[in-house]
Structure formats: structure tokens, C-alpha cells
């Protein structure tokens, strides 16, 4: 796994719990750990390519902080923060 973390941070976050995609810093690669949210909506996100194990990067936050623009499987998708919060990454 090649998560682009800087090395100091890395040691401390080893055992850190997964964070939701809505609150991670921009422009770093993350690996999806799990999806946790309303059943139907999460199924749709899975169908769109947000599957556990997949690597994603948040490339932009819109001027008002929401929605987030996320790159997954070669596509750019805009997700609201509420939706991104269902995606837990490490």
C-alpha cells in the first residue's frame, strides 16, 4: 500500500481509526476501508466505483466547502460532504 503520508505522521497514524472522506486533507491518496451509511445510497456509491480497497483522492472542495470533487477509478465525481462522510478511508 502506498498511501502518500509524510513519514512522521505515518508512525502515529498506524493504529489510528479510519477517517471519513469528508474530513481528510485534499490531494492525497487514500484507500477506502468501508462504507457506512443508508443502504440504498451506499449501494449506489459502490456501483459508481467507491468499493473498499480502492484508492481515492479528494482533488477540490467547492468554494463553500461542499461538495467535494473526488477522483476514483479514472473518473471525477462530485460528492456532497454528507455523502463523502459515509466513505471511511485509511
Amino acid at each position: 500500500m502506498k498511501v502518500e503520508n509524510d513519514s512522521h505522521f505515518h508512525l502515529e497514524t498506524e493504529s489510528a481509526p479510519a477517517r471519513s472522506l469528508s474530513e481528510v486533507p485534499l490531494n492525497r491518496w487514500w484507500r477506502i476501508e468501508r462504507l457506512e451509511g443508508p443502504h440504498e445510497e451506499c449501494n449506489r456509491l459502490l456501483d459508481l466505483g467507491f468499493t473498499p480497497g480502492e484508492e481515492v483522492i479528494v482533488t477540490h472542495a467547492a468554494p463553500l466547502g461542499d461538495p467535494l470533487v473526488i477522483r476514483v477509478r479514472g473518473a471525477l465525481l462530485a460528492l456532497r460532504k454528507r455523502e463523502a462522510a459515509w466513505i471511511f478511508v485509511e
Partner: protein
Amino acid sequence: MTTRIQEVEDQTRELTVCLVGMPNSGKTTLMNAITGGNFKTANYPGVTVSLLRGKSKAEFGCTLNVVDLPGVHSPVAPSPEEELACRVIEGNHERVRPDAFVLVVDATQLERHLKFAGFVAKQGKAVVVALTMMDLLRQSDQSVDVEKLARALGVPVVPVDPRTGGGVPELVKTVHAFADAPPIGSALARLPDEPVSAFKLIRELLQRSHAVRRAGRLSVGMDSPTARIDRIVLHRYWGFPVFFVVLISLFAAIFWAAQPFMDLIDAGFSDAGDLLLRVLPDSVISRFLAQGIVGGIGAVAVFFPQIMILFFLMTLLEDSGYLARGATLVDRPLSYLGLHGRSFVPMLSGFACAIPAVLAARAIPARRERLLTIWIIPLMSCSARLPVYALLLSALLPAGSAWKQGLSLAAIYVGSLLIASLTAGLASRLVFDYRKPSLLAMELPVYRSPRWKPILRMTWARGSSYLRRAGVPIMTVSACLWLLSNFAFSSQSIVTPAKMETSVAAQLGHKMEPALRPMGVDWRVGVGLISAFAAREVFVSSMAIVFHVDGDDDQTAQAGLLEQMRTATFPGTSQLIFTPSSIFGLIVFFFFSLQCFSTVAVVRRETNSWRLAGLQLAFYTGVGYILAVASVQILRALGVA
């Protein structure tokens, strides 16, 4: 489960092929390439919202019935247009029975598109994959080996470039050859429904077969033109300024770019009118032709260049890929108002015409947000209002200040966006109280540089359909109105030219006078307002007719009309009709009122009931009248003439 008899029928029948795939994969572009059609394509997901039908061009040898479907992100929790597509794919549609599918797959996003392909391949119908966006693949230093991919998936794969027609003949041939070979047992059809393992299998398939060669993960698109543009247009501080500059320059450009063409058309119609009067002997007929027909149509035709420029710029914007960014930017404010990021595109296309805009609202997933979007679309300043505003602004502002008129027009447009937002905000709180936020999950396509030929073709298609739609009411109403305002009831024999004051139109118009006086206008403007219910543009031709613009030799018809309007007074007094306050009132009236029965009809069809449609008609027209009266009275009270 086809019975024997149906099977026999099937053989004599032409093949029905459906173009399916995820949104924005190039289905409609491919449809146009196969059928030679001119269906709407644009660079954002969710353009096609209904089934488009056509027949393959004769040059491909064999005829296919081609049906283009709306794109589907996922069969889970579909929006109405996705549901329609899924119904056809699963064979549940009453009329469209596909024999084979052309799966349109974006080569730059194989994994995601193949996941959806699995759903299609399972239906037991023949499947041919059409691989689009191969040119983009080359740019981003990746490649797809078509043969290896076909072998890995177990279905035929044909690379195409729908924009140039490359690969399309091969595609048609392949479809014919494989039409009765459903991919049962192929790797694609065996993909599980469950997304996690399906994606895993797809990746394994692609890796094992070496079908895809790509550069390192980090280089994917991070330094592409798209990423660079996005850094500006989605910028924390620059995002919104850029957004407003784009919108305002779109609307302001309409005025100054159109002027030379407008002068040309104006001169043409004026000359035609003069010529008629000179060539034909002076009679009722010649004056009917010159004033009623040529004059009436000419008054509206002058504004055609503005409408074409609006269509052109909108097509350009739609093709660029910016719209999805715009939708992302405004998603937050719009959802605060009870709308959805996806409401942005229908709202914007409402500036061209409310009818396609109401249809475009199908792409909005939640019913509540869709209805609310439909509710506010009539407020968007559509192209039919453009001639009216243009005429009124020219009358209001001194000649030779095109930039002032341009900016005022832009202000009206942006104002209609704001008022619509306000209306939505109020309605979502007062009427639609049930709030369950829906999913955004919207794809942002890569930017594409404009291709002029298709853009001009699309502009022309939109423009000519506009002419067809508006032409008939303009012509009929102009003709009727000329007759009504030039003949009188009273005498047995027809007296012409009747004095305006005694004409039939005047007699009818006088009955409305009490309602019109508070708006600061007389019966002649009232006649225009009523006839505008046939089509809003008719207001302009009515003005030309009731204010009797006769071809003054050294003046064009347009200048003559403005002159007449500036000097027109209430009968028997020296009080001007068109003062700043009354013109403003008229603008307010047109801003709100729903003078378009086609919109009412399409809203009724999309919502399946008269309730929303009828309410819209009554509400907006009523509000338009009340606010027009209020603004005239307030302006007068403030001392504005």
C-alpha cells in the same frame, strides 16, 4: 420467452438495437453518426432523457432500428430517466423491444463502465461493445488492446470515434453478425451483481489479459488540461467570480454581437414593406401585406440574430464541460433552496426555452427537487422574452448605448435566476415541507475544446425549430390583429381604414382598460399583452401593428416603431404611454407571467397532473400583473415618470 410465432415474426422484422451505457459516454454522438440524425449531445452527464429513435444510414448496407437510451449511472435508486433506460434494458418497456445492445464504453474509464456492462450482458441479448474516447486514451499515455479486451470479456469490441464516424461501419456490421449470439457464459455476463467482487473481477480480467496498459497511478489526469482548468474554476475564491463572469458575458454578448445582423434584417424587411406598397396599387390588400404580414413578422424577425447567438453560446458552453462544474459550485446554495446541483442545467436551459428545460429536469433524482425545479423554470427568461425585453430596453434607454442595454439585459437574466431561487427557497419551506436530501454523486467530464461544425449544426437545429414553433402564431396573430385594428364593427359595409379608435380591436381593448390603467398603459398595449399568450414574441409584432408603423422612407421599421412608441400618448391627452415607469412595469409583467401554453402542456405531461401546471399558469400570471401594477405605482410615487 418468445413463442414460435413471434420468432418467425422476428426474422422478417428489422433488428432493433439499443445504445446503452453510462452517461456522457458518447451514445447520442454515436446515434447521430449511425443515423445521420441531429440529436442533442453535450458534454455533461444526463443530456438524453427520453428514447431517441432512428434508422441506420443506407450507406452501412443493412438497416437497423436504432434507439438511443438515457445514460445510466447505476440501476440502484435510479432517477426517472435512468429508470426508463433500465426498463428498456430489462425488456419491460411496452414498445421498445431490443434485439441487441450496443454498449457504449468510455475507454478512459473501463472499470466503471464495464461494471454497468455486466448488468446489460446479463439480459440474454446480443451485446457489442463500442469503445469511445480512444483519442483521449492516447493523450493520457494509456492504451487499450481491443482484441485482448474482446477475448477477456467474451463479447465483440469495436473501437469507434463517433464524432468523426470512424469505426461506425464496422460497428454496424458487427452488430448484424452477432445479433443472434447472446453472450451467455461470457466473462462479462458472469460478473456478479454485487459491486465489490464485480469490480475486483473486472480489474483481474483487465490485468490478466494485458488489455490495458497505463502509466503510473499518480500521473492519471493530475496534470491534464482538465485538472489545470479545474484548479481555477473550482478555486475557493475564484470559483464564483469566474462563474458569474461566464454567465454575465453570455447574456451581455447577446446584445452587442447581434447588432450588425439585426440592422441587416431590419433593413431587409423595411425595404420589402416599402417595395410592396410601391409595386402594388394602394389598396387594403397591399397595406395588409405590407403592414400586417411583412411589418408584423419583421418586427420579431429583427431579434432572430440575438436568439441565434444565445443558442450558439449556450451550445458552446454545454459542449465545453463547464456546466457540470457550474452545477457543483451551486449545489450548496441550491440545496439550501430545496433544489439540487442538477437543477442548474435545466434552469440554464430555461434561458433558451422552458420546454426542453422541463424535460431536462428528469435527470434530478428526487421527486421533490424535480417538482420544485419544474415549478421555477417558467421564471427563467426564455428566448421568447428576448425580443420583448430588447424592444422595451431600446425604448427605455437612449439609442447608441448598446452596452447599457446589454448590461440591463444581463441584469434581467441574472435577476430571473435570483428571483427563481428565492421562489424555490420560499416554496420549499412553505409548500414542500418534507425534506429528505438526495444523492448528488455527479460526474465531472473532461473539458473538450469546441468543434465548430457540430456546434453550428446544433445551433441551427435549435434556431430553426424555434422559427417553426414561433413562426405560425406570429404570422396568424399579426394577420388577425391587423384586420381587427383596421376594420370596424359598426357599419354594414367594411370601412377602411377605420380610425384606430373605432376598430374592433379598440372596442375589445377598451373593455380591458380598467385593468390596464394601473399598469400605466392603454388598450393598445393591452391588446399586445393578450396576443402575447399565443407566443410572447407576438407582443412585439402587435406593437408594430397597433402603433401603425408605416414605412417612412428614410427610417427603418425598427427605428420607426421605437419612434412611435416614444411619442405615443393616451388618446385625447398629451400624456406619454411609454414612460420609464410603465416600461419597467411591462418588463416586470413579462418577467413573471407564464404566457406560454406549450410550457403548461409539457409540465402537465411531466408531472402527470394538471395541478402543478394550472397552478403555475394562474400563479405566475397573477403575480406578474400584481407586481407590475405595484412597481408602476411605487415608481410613480417616487417621482419617476
